[in-house]
């Protein structure tokens, strides 16, 4: 018996996930007959049918279902192998892969490769929905510059060099569209409107905190919220009156909200003294000198700029 090839397993899992040959083909970037042919080939290799094919769609057989976790394991190990290979290649060629969130400070710290001497830095903004903590752990990226709320970014195996630590939460609004009195401000009034929040890449753990706080303290849920990947997007949305901005830490200082004509109020300052941390994150057991040197250089540069 020959064991299945990686491509067949990837297509098998895509078909399991989508439940349709055409959707699986779209996901894998191949044609539908190619998916069909790969599945037939896989079934012939393993020697039993994996799917029932009917006019109403595809459903997995019992034996096929039992194969799913095993196939997922193989694909995961294969992906990890390639990631490790890419990491070794970066080490050998003095490349450092850096992801940043959409904060102003992260954008400012991006420096051209030629300035960093022998190391070639490859910068990229964190993709939507990407788990950057996981990506750091599995060697997909070497350094991440991102914000976190409370302890959400403190996980074993990941080291943080804090660049900014700020208290509480900032609420901002455009006075043209909203009338709030900063002297007698209440959070439930603000979240009755659409809330403009940071996406998880900007402040991991903040949305979860706010949801939980609103539910447990006020007995309400955040019905309408817009999550922004970058601080400038959030400021623009707030200026346009699309909602009330709720950001962790001293957002006014970071994002120059007053200069943008927004009014602000600070809250939770006393109970959350180190609410927001913007920092440089890297693997705690990292031994690549180029990565460690880049972290040190970046830390120094950020400290100077702040």
């Amino acid at each position, binding site marked *: *018996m020959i*064991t*299945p*090839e*990686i*491509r067949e397993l990837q297509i098998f899992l895509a078909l399991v996930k989508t439940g349709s040959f055409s959707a699986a083909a779209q996901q894998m970037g191949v044609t539908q007959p190619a998916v069909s042919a790969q599945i*037939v080939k896989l*079934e*012939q290799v*393993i*020697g*039993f*049918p*994996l*799917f*029932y*094919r*009917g006019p109403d769609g595809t459903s997995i*057989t019992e*034996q096929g279902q*039992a*194969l799913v976790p*095993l*196939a997922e*394991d*193989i694909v*995961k*190990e*294969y992906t*990890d*192998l*390639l990631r*490790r*290979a*890419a990491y*070794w*290649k970066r080490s*050998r060629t003095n490349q450092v892969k850096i992801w940043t969130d959409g904060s102003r400070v992260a954008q400012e710290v991006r420096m051209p490769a030629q300035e960093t001497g022998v190391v070639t830095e*490859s910068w*990229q*903004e964190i*993709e939507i929905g990407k788990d950057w903590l996981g990506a750091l752990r599995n060697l*997909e990226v070497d350094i991440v510059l991102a914000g976190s709320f409370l302890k959400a970014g403190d996980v074993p195996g990941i080291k943080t060099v804090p660049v900014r630590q700020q208290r509480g939460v900032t609420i901002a609004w455009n006075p043209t569209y909203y009338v709030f009195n900063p002297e007698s401000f209440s959070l439930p009034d603000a979240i009755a409107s659409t809330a403009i929040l940071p996406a998880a890449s900007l402040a991991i753990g903040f949305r979860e905190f706010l949801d939980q706080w609103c539910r447990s303290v006020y007995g309400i849920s955040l019905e309408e919220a817009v999550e922004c990947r970058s601080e400038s997007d959030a400021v623009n949305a707030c200026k346009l009156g699309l909602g009330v901005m709720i950001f962790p830490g001293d957002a006014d200082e970071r994002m120059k909200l007053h200069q943008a004509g927004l009014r602000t109020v600070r809250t939770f300052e006393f109970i959350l003294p180190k609410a927001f941390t913007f920092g440089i994150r890297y693997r705690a057991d990292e031994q690549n000198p180029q990565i460690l040197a880049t972290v040190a250089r970046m830390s120094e540069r950020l400290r100077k700029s702040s």
Partner: protein
Amino acid sequence: MDREKMARQEEGDSRTSAVDFRHLSAFQRVYQEKSYAHAGQSIFATRKSIVRMMQNLERSFDTPLFSEGLRGELIPGPFAERLFNDLRFLNAARHRMKDHITAIHENGRVLHVGSSPAVFRTREFRNLFRGLQSLDGIRACYSAVDPADAGRALVSGHCDLYLGCQVGTASRFVIQEAGSISFRIYRRGEAGAGEPQGRAHQVSLDGKAPEPPVLSEGGRGWNHLDEAAWLHWLDRPEECPLGTIIFAPDVEMDREFWQPEEIPEAVAVHQPLHASFLRQHAYEFLPALMSKLRTRIPAS
């Protein structure tokens, strides 16, 4: 979208088609044998193809794998050492799947045998089914399939092997003769004196039946009896009028109600039974299984 594409491109240097299991297995052989030629011998490949595979891998990973020593033996580079070490996780996952598949093969794979309910009642079908149940490596189970839906059931995978009297022509199916169903004449008692004589009925299977013999009682022609009505009389023979004659497949019948009649050997009273399966079916054993079934067919 553009950003996603760029990101994929950026990290996709090594994610090329060359880094597949075939190449990685060949790499492990070369690493162990320290020779392209010996590695080739152990996996039945030529030295040339092994060298080409290693070149593909080197291109994909953008790094050399082996260098040649003074005595011609291959020396793994630092990347090859790391790759070989790291492959153990992937190998373990592949072994787990292989063991799982082997266990399914050893425990017997489920064979869904489909037929119409009428064919299912025949003695020939039951003999064939019993034969399938006795085979190692197969766990035969029955699914009732309407003859009109047989093709769909085979394509969808709800039925692996269809036994019926109809012969399809679609090239995606393998259709072979699997046996022959004998037909007999059964009498439901005798009509009493002065009572009207029962009718004579002919039963077909999947719309097919052999030519019935001429009845000794003149003036009685055969009427078609559909399969459902025949199955009903099989289960409730007391509802069948006395004096009825049926020309039907050989099945287990209640002798208290039905008296089988001998048919002269010269009259052909057999209907071929065909087995169909998908040409591209996952069960590699189906053609061999069909050969086994065919050996049971009488030479006539």
